[in-house]
């Protein structure tokens, strides 16, 4: 049995509290061959894949306010850079209308955003 070892570094989203140990922070996760990240990310091995080399991006820091945020659509948005939802809302006018439309659609389909966040709305990519 494994005896005690240094506790793993923990990633915690400052908005939703999601937490998970991460194994790498940066733009070039190990063993990912040709993949390069366009931002500095908290990365872990994808726990849902049996393949050791598959990685999972947990989140990164907001380019405006430097909050540590998860990659979930309820907490952040990537558009050339990472923005936390709070900063997105503050600077909404600077985003192209396509992005704004997406965000609007998201918040219109359900009037109560907090409930949504709890019940786990699935991401667009999932649909």
């Amino acid at each position, binding site marked *: 049995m*494994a005896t005690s070892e240094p506790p793993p570094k923990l990633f915690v989203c400052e908005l939703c509290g999601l937490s998970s140990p991460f194994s790498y922070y940066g733009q070039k996760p190990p063993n990912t061959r040709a993949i*390069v*990240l366009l*931002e500095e990310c908290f990365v872990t091995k994808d726990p849902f894949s*049996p393949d*050791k080399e598959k990685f999972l991006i947990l989140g990164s820091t907001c380019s405006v306010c430097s909050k540590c945020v998860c990659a979930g659509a309820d907490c952040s948005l990537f558009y050339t850079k990472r923005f936390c939802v709070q900063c997105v809302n503050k600077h909404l006018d600077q*985003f192209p209308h396509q992005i704004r439309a997406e965000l609007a659609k998201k918040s219109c389909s359900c009037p109560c955003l907090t409930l949504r966040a709890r019940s*786990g709305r699935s991401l667009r*990519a999932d649909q």
Partner: protein
Amino acid sequence: ESRSWDWDSPRCRAELDEIFFRQHDYIQSGTPEHKDFWAFFERFQRFKTKREMSGYDLGLPTDYDARYKINLSVCTKDIEERLGKQHKGGRSSSGPGRQEIAECRLSYLHFLDFTQKQSFNKLAKLRREQKNLPIFQYKGRIIELVRRHPVVVVAGDTGCGKSTQVPQYLLSAGFTQIACTQPRRIACISLAKRVSFESLNQYGSKVGYQIRFETTRTTATKLIFLTEGLLLRQIQQDGELSQYQVLIVDEVHERHLHCDFLLGVLRTLLENRSDLRLILMSATINIKLFSNYFNSAPVLQVPGRLFPIQVTYRPISPEEQVSRSEKLDPRPYLRILQGIDQRYPPEERGDLLIFLSGVTEISTIQEACQIYATHTRRWIILPLHSTLSLAQQDKVFDIAPPGVRKCIISTNIAETSVTIDGVRFVVDSKVKEMSYDPKAKMQRLQEFWISRASSEQRKGRAGRTGPGVCYRLYAESDYDAFAPYPVPEIHRVALDMKSMELGDPLSFVFIDPPPAASIQTAVTYLKDQGALNSQGELTTIGTLLAQLPVDVVIKMLVLGSMFNLVEPVLTIAAALSVQSPFLRSSQQNPDCATARQHLHSNQGDPFTLLNTFNAWQVKGERGGGSRKWCRRRGLEEQRLYEMVNLRRQFKDLLKSQGLLESEDGASSSGSRGQRMERLSERRKLHQLKRDHEQQESSKRKVLRLEEGQEDSSGSDTEDRGRQKKDKEKAGHDLDIQEVKFKLRHDVSELHDAVSACQDLSSRKQALLKLLVCRGLYPQLALPDEHNTARKDSDQVFHTKNKQGVVIHPTSVFANDPEVLHVPEDDGRETKKDSSKHQLLAFVTLLETNKPYLTNCVRVPALQTLLLVANSVDSNADCSRLVVDGWLELEFKLPEEALKILSTALSLRAEWERFLLHQLGHSSVQESSTRKVSRKDLEKLSDGLVRFLHYTEVSYSIRRLTALQTQNLYIGCQAEETTFSGVNALFPGVEAKPDPIKGGLCVTSFFNYNCLSDSRDLYSDCLRAFWTCPNCDLYMPLTPLERMQHEATCRPPGEQQQPEESVSAKTNSSMSSLTRVYHCDICDKDLTLTSTEILKHKRQ
């Protein structure tokens, strides 16, 4: 040079006008357009200021591109080439152009982004679910309590999440070396799977399980789920249990004796390990009991999340009660289905779960419900019990189409071991449970009052996904009368207590002591099994059994490892430990019967299983071919795979106990090329397995309404239905069993194993039967003497504790009982005498509607009894023997009886010597036992085989009646019975008078002259002239004297007792019967034999 610039001043504006709006410019100063511009300018400036006020420019590109939403990029070949400037010139015109590559890249990026989101969502969902569990808010508190107290009780009801979350909380708090015990093996596996998934380690080994012989534990394992029994085993090996830092004992409220015992042991263990942390997890009943037992340990109570369940008592009316012989009356059950249909609209989903006792009851109710279901088209009836094929079991997890409910009719397997979501209604009846009946000493299915704990557990099954209803087919007063928890089986615990040197099991401090009578029964059981000797001390076999997690088959394995019969014994032991691969439903199928014919062995069911396994292995090709092969013969393929796995585990076990030499890495040899080939094949197989696991993760099918409508219990129909699917699949689908199999086993090695046990010589077969029988002992049955005159279906057998048992219809002897009959004409004088009597050794006595013997082997009666029985008693001339107090054998010719008896005694002594040596307990004994050579072993097995095959003694055999067993023995004799100079008649054994039976204990199992018919007065007459075949001794000897001589006298060729001459031995054994007798009349101490004493008295 500071200049002031004011946009609003006309001067400044005029200066700009000079630059932009001159007379010949597009817009001229002073025109309305010019005025419009300055107005626009002001608005534009305001807009810009606002933007600057709100922060800063995000610097986003002006044009939208979906690609900007993706946070990764990939360096592909084309980019590499471009960067390396290695333009390979004329790329062939048919290849992709710049545009196609760009298009493909875009899709690829989106795909990568998609997979990221997919995994992330899984993670987010998982975390959300964990957060929503009632126990989540206690996480910090639990960790703190565990840090500060040696023992903590966590109490929470079903659904609070304690079993999955508490271990994870401890892991996350930095605890390692955590063990979590479970009462059931299946829970260990499923919890380990769940927790490793939740702790994001499903493909690692941070979380593992250990059951029976199977473990997923590695050096990286920090949390292990294991059974209570296994933890006890580990305590036996390491009293400090130093390998663990934290112990979690789950489900303590179930109050299995094992668990109670474990708690008792841990209580003492904690005194020596102040650093050890113990967490007891329980339902919210009787918490005080546990807290108090551990010095008022702190209790943390967590509310559950079970939905409200309405309980309805519907006792079965007397006219619908089942009498012993009748079938279960389905009406009470049908009324519940009807009631549900009337009360609940079909749109309201929710399935029904009915608990019944056994397969027979299930098919009765299933039949009746099916008629109702076919009629209403609102139900799908599904049985659930462990003898179903796995595919059929799996159906209960599938989903019913809209408007239709599943009705699952199950044994208590669904009580805790299998969780079916979507159940809203539960029917609970007074279920019969399979249990060990200590009085009758057998497994039997009896109508037991179930415990309150398990009926609560059943009720809870209705409230997992929403509010539910529980119908109890008994009165509320019945419920109150139930015992609080199930009555446990105690014998294993008694064995543990013995081997852990905890002293007298009757004095152990249990949290709640079990009845003394059941402990007493357990000790008796262990004595019968040969695990304890008559003084209640652990025997060599017992010591070994205590170290191992299973009982009966282990005895066989140990015995087999000695005689070079490991391979077939491994197969038989594995086959007897899993469910029969023969599908019940295929029994009536004539095609299956024909195809199976050549697998049958009329030696017995274990041999049929051995043949089947070997034939399947030889078949070689697995996968589709194997499935077909199995289907043709009506075999459940899965069971054969289970046998392969178990077989391997048994083998590892024997190796780990030093009972089997490990082969010297034959599989790692071979040329470098071969090794590489194997390696790459393994890699491929691993990949296949991973792919499969990924696909498999969540597939729930929608059931057809017709499901289960065909044959009620058969899996044939299901097979037929599936056949087509299988065929479709076979082409492209991989066979995961095959893959797993190849990963785990070296196929060529297995083939060698098979060839080692194929075509057993009759010699080996006889030996193998003897070993199997010794393993199964004392499970023996005697054929009724009138069987020859009876129909095949009316053959009757008797065991020690039960008369009139029958052979289970699945046994080979059910169809072929003649092989058990004594041959008609072999020149016998009376009808009962023969040298060909046989007994059946069996694995279980299963009492359902009749008492059935299952898994039987036939063995020659006399020889086997003399070689394996725990107790053989004789009369003075040994013409009458009573074995284990219930079988009486009578011989026509006492000389023959004597001869065979003395052969048996020396064979057994020799066998025991080997066994001791084999088990490594010989060191204390004389050093002569070290000389156990292969040659000696050959001689012993030769001797045993000769004894089994060529003993041609005519005798009769019968079961003693109760009355006869009462006056069986002479009993304790009045006179002082101090034998003088009682020499060792047999190595290591002292002959002494038996205080209860009377007579003389010659060996641990043989008592001479204790049967009450012995005519001691005339024992002089029993002296007969006799010539020793070995040493030419010729003199009148009593039977005992003769045996004593034979035991020590060897043929001239094999003199091995140099320290004593043969004649000296003879003399000493002659005198060993004498004892000091004090005659009150002549007031003298005389050294006399018992006969002489009697003579003296008369004078």
